[in-house]
């Protein structure tokens, strides 16, 4: 008779794990990423390869430097790299893409304490930094299957149909143009129970409503830029969005409103990721506002009597 294990209850665990979740997210991103690579050719694939591998490498080395376990194994760096790469133009210089991964992993994620502790979405924050530093490269796109360079933002290009917007045969960032793939991936994650539909519903709902009030072409507004990837992936990031369903909905709504404002009244052609990063800062506040009331907890309500007593005492 050997020595028996002595541990605290429960003695049974579910099989969900961080790695499994991250793999599902990568799977959900793949349709849009692959379509992007097919549409924009070899260089687009290289950009994704560089952002993902650089992100994983930087995560590995930060793990050594900061002495953190479980850094690369959880696959979260690969997700960050993929998300960042998908939001870059197809002809983005590779070394600049690697800098983007460095900013995302080291500056935004690991410097704040590693996975689960960062305040802004690493990919979104790094994307904003790249936009400011390498503005020209970040705003030069190419019509798929051609060498035609365009520097106008996709929402303003005008002449493309909804079908093109759904399947990505328009000029734009690698992983953003195939809206159908992103919607598919987003629904897959919701059905798996990995993400909740609250944030995308708030995001797309408020954005569509504002676009409709503003007299814009609503489907076109929804299908262009980073709106879909923002609503289904960036606004559903666990770490940087609120915990509760109502918090997530408010978060998404805020993102939708900000995206609309930046797109139509701001200086940037597409401000989805700026909106997400800005809303990330509201997450602690939204968490506090929407915290659930524990079952059976008695909320101390101020009755008229106690109010009167308080004012009398004052």
């Amino acid at each position, binding site marked *: 008779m050997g020595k*028996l294990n002595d541990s605290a*209850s429960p*003695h049974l665990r579910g099989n969900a794990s961080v790695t499994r979740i991250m793999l599902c997210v990568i799977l959900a991103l793949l349709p849009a990423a692959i379509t992007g690579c097919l549409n924009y050719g070899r260089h687009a694939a290289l950009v994704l390869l560089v952002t993902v591998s650089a992100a994983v490498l930087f995560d590995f080395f930060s793990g050594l430097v900061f002495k953190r376990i479980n850094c690369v194994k959880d696959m979260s760096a690969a997700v960050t790299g993929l998300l960042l790469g998908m939001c870059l133009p197809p002809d983005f210089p590779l070394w600049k893409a690697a800098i983007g991964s460095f900013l995302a992993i080291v500056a935004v994620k690991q410097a704040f304490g590693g996975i689960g502790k960062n305040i802004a979405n690493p990919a979104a924050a790094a994307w904003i930094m790249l936009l400011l530093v390498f503005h020209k490269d970040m705003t030069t796109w190419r019509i798929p299957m051609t060498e035609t360079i365009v520097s106008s933002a996709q929402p303003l290009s005008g002449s493309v149909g909804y079908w093109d917007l759904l399947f990505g045969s328009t000029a734009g960032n690698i992983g953003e143009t195939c809206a159908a793939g992103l919607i598919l991936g987003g629904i897959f994650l919701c059905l798996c129970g990995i993400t909740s539909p609250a944030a995308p519903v708030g995001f797309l709902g408020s954005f569509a409503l504002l676009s409709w009030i503003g007299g814009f072409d609503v489907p076109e507004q929804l299908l262009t830029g980073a709106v879909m990837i923002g609503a289904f992936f960036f606004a559903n990031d666990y770490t940087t969005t609120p915990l509760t369903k109502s918090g997530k909905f408010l978060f998404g709504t805020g993102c939708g409103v900000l995206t609309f404002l930046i797109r139509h009244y701001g200086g940037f052609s597409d401000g989805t990721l700026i909106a997400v990063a800005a809303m990330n800062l509201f997450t602690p506040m939204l968490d506090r506002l929407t915290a659930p009331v524990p079952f059976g907890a008695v909320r101390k309500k101020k009755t008229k009597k106690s109010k009167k007593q308080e004012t009398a005492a004052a």
Partner: protein
Amino acid sequence: MKRLNGIHLPVKKRTEDKQITPLPLPKTVRIPMLMHSGSPCVPIVSAGDHVDVGQLIGRAEASDAVPVHSSVSGTVRRIIRYELPSGQTVPCAEIETCETQLLADTCIPPVINTKQDLIDAARESGCVGLGGDGSLTFQKLSTNHPVQMLIVNGAECETRLSADGRLMLEAPEQIIGGIELVTKLLKIRETRIGVRRNRPAAIQQLLNAAANSRNITVCPLPSDYPQGAEKVLIFHTAGIAVPDGQTPEELGILVLNVSTLAFLYQYSQTGIPLVERVVTVDGDAVTKPCNLRVPIGTPVTDLLDYAACEPDRIHQLLCGGEMMGECITFRASVVKTQNGLIASNTVKTYEESACIRCGRCMNACPLSLMPVSLDKAYQQRDVNQLKALRVDLCMNCGCCTYVCTAKRPLAETIQSAKALLA
């Protein structure tokens, strides 16, 4: 009606169709003097004394204790120290059994005509909450508040356990008998029995047995875990949320387990105190899972032998179910509150990583607490934040730990956090 959160556990009821069988008489039994929540009893036998089944061996001197009776006929070998899973040591009577098992002459059916008679009987019988919590039944019955409703706990929501489930199938009339006894003397108008929806046969048996009794309803509960927790059970059967700071008794609600009621009924008929109980024996190390009726104090190794389970292969032994059970050793005996004995040959260890704020623990918590925030507050030893997050309400059901994707031992952390406040 709103449903409380919970988790869906994998169905592992291998013993659900295993009839309750008596365990062959053990050679020795070791009966600890503390098998309830309260103070230990004082042993009144010494080495060499002859005892019979049902004879008083431990006197309840404190007001929060019930007496302990011998579960066998035999000779007391010695009084030893027995270590409980909590670490507390209590006196324990080691009794060697003899061939002829006789009932002590003190075992005569009690006369129960009034509420006080029932309370006294519950106390003298050594009755405790047989569902596993070990609460003192006589204390529950002696409530000064008028009881409006009796809620009967037939949830048995742990994995693997089926002792209560078998009782509902095999002896529903005893449960109904117990209900009638209690409701008559405490003048309770309404009874609700909570049984999980995925046990239709048990629900049917109870309905059949209660066909002639009025005011007994069987409430199908969700098939999630936890349903047997008092607050959850009351909410899902009666729709009443017990407010913080109040006990169910103050709201006129009495909650008793099916096995406890069946025992009270049997005691009222025979006068044999609590000397045996049904234990489910299961686990990956067990080749012959079964439901056994065993004398209290039987060494757990006897049960393992019967269930064809090699002790060498066991790496973990649990008293109770896998979610809330406690780790025990091979030296342990079957106690009054033990509804299961789970032997595992594999003990998985999990590498915990940083929380990614996935929020699954919040969605699993039946009491809508925020384990994610409690974990963080505990790491910072932030007592005020822990209080604000109502750490005191946690009932340690373990749902948060079960669902945690970062494999953090949240329930354990929350118990440490509770201790921080005390």
